[in-house]
């Protein structure tokens, strides 16, 4: 080998090593970028998982809340409408009742007397006062006869007088004792209130049962 060939060989080898080193560097560069990209995706997925899970949870809770509220409101609206119709039926019933009674005065007087007597007995007799509406007050109840009946049932000396005060009700009587400290409410409104639960049940069956 001549000296020129040796020189040429040395430079050729060096050039080969240079190319190899640069190729390796390029490969290493590509690798590090690719690895970082992959790592970024893994990290981002890890970070995104709880965000997505929480969003799903919140969305489901919100969905349930919205639907439950609407169903509750819908049920309430139906119930409220039923109550309204039942109230209207009860009001119509009391109107019908009083119309029937007023068209048959004898029956109404009998009923008022019965209600007054029951109230007087419940109060145990004594000095009793009857409160009536303007119409009932004009019917002329036999208060002495009523007092005797109450006295007979209670055994207590009894007087009954009609109050000068008129009540504004549909019908029936208020009986008071001890100067108004004790009262029996035998008005139709009072009777309806005492029997309200039963009357509502009857009305609901008649109006809404299939």
């Amino acid at each position, binding site marked *: 080998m001549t000296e020129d060939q040796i020189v040429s060989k040395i430079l050729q080898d060096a*050039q080969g090593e240079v190319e190899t080193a640069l190729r390796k560097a390029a490969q290493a560069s590509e690798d590090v970028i690719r690895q970082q990209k992959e790592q970024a995706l893994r990290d981002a997925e890890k970070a995104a998982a709880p965000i997505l899970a929480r969003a799903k949870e919140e969305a489901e809770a919100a969905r349930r809340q919205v639907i439950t509220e609407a169903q509750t409101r819908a049920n309430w609206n139906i119930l409220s409408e039923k109550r309204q119709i039942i109230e209207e039926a009860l009001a119509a019933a009391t109107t019908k009742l009083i119309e029937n009674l007023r068209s048959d005065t004898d029956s109404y007087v009998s009923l008022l007397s019965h209600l007054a007597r029951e109230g007087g007995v419940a109060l145990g007799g004594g000095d009793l006062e009857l409160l009536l509406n303007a119409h009932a007050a004009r019917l002329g109840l036999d208060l002495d006869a009523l007092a005797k009946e109450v006295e007979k049932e209670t055994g207590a000396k009894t007087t009954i007088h009609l109050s000068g005060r008129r009540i504004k009700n549909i019908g029936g009587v208020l009986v008071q004792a001890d100067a108004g400290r004790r009262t029996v409410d035998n008005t139709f409104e009072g009777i309806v209130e005492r029997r309200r639960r039963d009357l509502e049940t009857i009305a609901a069956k008649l109006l809404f049962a299939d």
Partner: protein
Amino acid sequence: MSASLSEALAKISAAEGKAKELLSKADLEAKEKVRRAEIEARRVYHEAYEAHLGQARAGAAQVKEAREAAKAKAEEALKEAERQIAALRRQAEGRFEGTAQALAEEILSAAWGRA
């Protein structure tokens, strides 16, 4: 040592020096390339991370749209209630008089103490 041998050795030595220089430069160039790649890799990392997370957040927002879908169902439930109420009214109208009469009799019975 003959003059020609001495010249030859000098030439070879110069060539070796040149080769070392080339390798040294190549080494520096390679290191610089890798350094720049690492900087680029960090940029790529953040870009990819934010892009993917952004997609996930957008997905989360879509999931929340379920609430809007639920509102449609809720409105449907209320409309159904309105239909039921209208049907109740119609049914009650047909039975109203009879019911009022029955209730009036019931109240009268209660007034007479028969209930």
